């Protein structure tokens, strides 16, 4: 994390752009910008600014937004729920749809069902998130008037409204993820289904569903779980586009807006938090291998 902090701070220090110029507005003069920069402490040398930031971090303070004057922790706290909701719903939708599809495709390998699943998978990979998002909005929000176009409701305000606002974004974001998981599940299942112990289970007279889920799927789980873990990074990247199209006030949009305005404390804070989260997710994925494959021990 120390390396991440140093690299992030250094890169932003070297990036062209000046928040003082953004604050001053179009009519400002060079002198106005210089005075604003001095007020914000942006004219301080690198080491002093970096030291100040690290000192704040050591005290649990990620700093304050240059523009809104709101604490970065407050801004991230405001945005974490929408992003977490979107990510979890997407994950849920993707796993609930993709794993059964992959299992069915593997069980019916070579049939029209398999080909349909693979065609869906290729389509899911190929259609950009924003195109799918616009199509979903057009059909389900404009034409059918079933679901809202944009926005987000907090889960504690109204659970159903929260869910309604997440359906289209989750499908839009989740499609590429579904395609990925479905393919990996199919490939992994095909490997496992060719194993001797599966033939033995079938020979014992076990029901096909029990063989597929109880024996094959459990043994195929490690690569699937790895893909889900890696995919979370993919999701965070995709969430930026989804949050923009559906006007969801999440972390992705917070980051993009901050980058466009050069709101350094927000960019630094978000990258640092997400680096930490990514490390934890990878750790959780690694630990979960022990559940699916008892042979794995750390």
């Amino acid at each position, binding site marked *: 994390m120390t390396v991440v902090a140093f690299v992030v701070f250094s890169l932003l220090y070297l990036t*062209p*752009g*000046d928040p003082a*110029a*953004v*604050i*001053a*507005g*179009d*009519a*400002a*003069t*060079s*002198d*106005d*910008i210089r*005075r*604003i920069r*001095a*007020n914000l402490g942006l004219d301080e040398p690198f080491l002093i600014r970096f030291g100040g930031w690290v000192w704040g971090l050591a005290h649990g303070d990620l700093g304050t*937004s240059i*523009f*809104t*004057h*709101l604490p970065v922790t407050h*801004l991230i706290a*405001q945005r974490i729920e929408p992003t977490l909701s979107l990510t979890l719903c997407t994950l849920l939708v993707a796993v*609930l749809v993709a794993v*059964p599809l992959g299992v069915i495709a593997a069980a019916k390998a070579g049939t029209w069902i398999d080909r349909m699943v693979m065609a869906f998978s290729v389509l899911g990979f190929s259609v950009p998130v924003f195109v799918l998002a*616009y199509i979903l*909005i*057009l059909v389900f*929000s*404009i034409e059918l*008037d*079933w*679901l*809202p*176009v*944009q*926005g987000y409701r907090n889960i504690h305000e*109204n659970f*159903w*409204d929260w*869910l*309604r606002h997440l*359906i289209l974004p989750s499908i839009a974001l989740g499609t590429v993820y579904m395609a990925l998981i479905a393919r990996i599940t199919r490939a992994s299942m095909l490997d496992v289904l060719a194993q001797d112990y599966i033939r033995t289970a079938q020979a014992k007279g076990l029901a096909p*569903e029990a063989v597929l889920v109880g024996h094959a799927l459990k043994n195929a789980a490690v690569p699937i779980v790895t893909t889900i873990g890696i995919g979370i990074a993919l999701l965070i990247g995709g969430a930026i586009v989804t949050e*923009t*199209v*559906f*006007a969801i*006030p999440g972390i992705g*949009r*917070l980051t993009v*807006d901050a980058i*466009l*305005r*050069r709101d350094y404390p927000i960019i630094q804070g978000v990258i640092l938090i997400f680096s930490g989260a990514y490390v934890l997710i990878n750790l959780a994925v690694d630990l979960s291998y022990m559940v699916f494959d008892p042979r794995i021990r750390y």
Partner: protein
Amino acid sequence: MTNVSRYIAAIVAAVVITMLPVLDAAAQQKVLKFIPQADLRILDPIATTAYITRNHGYMVYDTLFAMDEKFQVKPQMVDKFDISKDQLTYTFTLRDGLKFHDGLPVRSADCIASIDRWSKRDALGQKLAEATEAWSAVDDKTFRLKLKKPFPLTLEALAKPSSNVPFIMPERIAKTDPFKNIDDATGSGPFKFVKAEWVPGNKVVYVKNTDYVPRKEAPSWASGGKVVKVDRVEWIYIPDSATAAAALNAGEADWWEQLPPDLIPLLTRNKAITVKNIDPLGSMGMIRFNFLYPPFNNQKMRQALLYAVNQQDYVIGIAGDAKNGHPCYSYFTCGTPLSSEVAAEPLKGKRDFEKAKQLIKESGYKGERIVIIDATDQPIVHSQSLLTLEMLKKLGLNAEVQAGDWGTLITRRAVKEPPEKGGWSIFHTWLVGPDMVNPAVNFPIRGTGDKAWFGWPTDAKIEELREVWFNATDASSSKKAASAVQERAFEFVPFVPTGQFILPTAYRSNISGVIIAPVSFLWNVEKK
């Protein structure tokens, strides 16, 4: 039922339940959902000239005076005022019942502190400050301005309609360094800012200020009665314009402040939506030069561009359709009292590339590289940049566009290095009509060198002519002096105007009372 069927049935049931309409407690209130032109990031309308912050200012603050649609100055917070015969003393008395959102009354001290802070940032305010001997409070409701010399634009300055607007804040806030952002939006205006519900990048919430005492007159621009007819206003910032259009179409938003040209036909097709030009002054595009380095440190080079720029192309490029703008051969906003076509011949009529090439030759152009800095995330800037590049290439000039985002452009334009060392030759921007109506507010026209706007032109003559205009005492001499400024501008060419354009607004048919003005004011607006 098999396991698979149960599984599918459960998913379908969950989806159907979520599609049922949800009763909203807020529906009991009259909530105006407004999609603003930009995201509100800075709350201080004095520390920045950003139009979105100016618009926020109009929501929460009030002004001493305001300009109406006939460009007449009208009292707003002021009840009565008196000007001494020698034009050196102005005495103002505040209206009864003016209160800040924290419940405290508006006092003379608040007004004086606010004007003082504003006059340290605003160009017209600085001019007023130069002429000011002292502001003093007579009592809590009456205050006085003593001038060193008559300043005929005193009331116009206090009624300035666009950035920076002299909004009145409580003294405790107005004492803040004008180069430091305030984050307390306590004003005395018709709406109260709800900071607890502010989600930067997404939502800004205002509620009706029930203590606000509107004037009796009908609203006209920023003047007259600011009667609030909704309980709550939500600014919903939707960064993606296709989503914003869909939200308006679906009734999730009531009003979209500024439409991108390509979406106008889509919204016009919906009978429940009114697409309208409510901004009588629109905005003015411009090509700005760097006066420090060749080739645009040469007047003939700048003049050459006057013969080549086709404003009609720029208007279509920016606004998508000739209906959304028109050429404006004036350095002052067309449709306002000081605009004219005095000395505008080089910019008007058939484009004369031969004349332009002749001027380039006379300028001694040696093939220096012309760097146009562009912001691809700003369609108005980007379209102008591409048109200018094409025009310069047609003129045989060594030009290139260096693209970035707006954040990079506004940083880079402050760089005084030569173009080949990270500097620039040309950038494009635009200003709203009220910011170019006269020589006082039209800052790109100025020639104060290092202290001038980016590009840093030095032109003592235009400054002299501007002073003459400041001292004009009646409409006729003011017009004459402004014409002289324009004549000089067409000779010196501080920038090339690229036309006047209007980005229309769109609102649903249950909305009425929208005020025709250069700023989207949200008072008087009714939602049925």
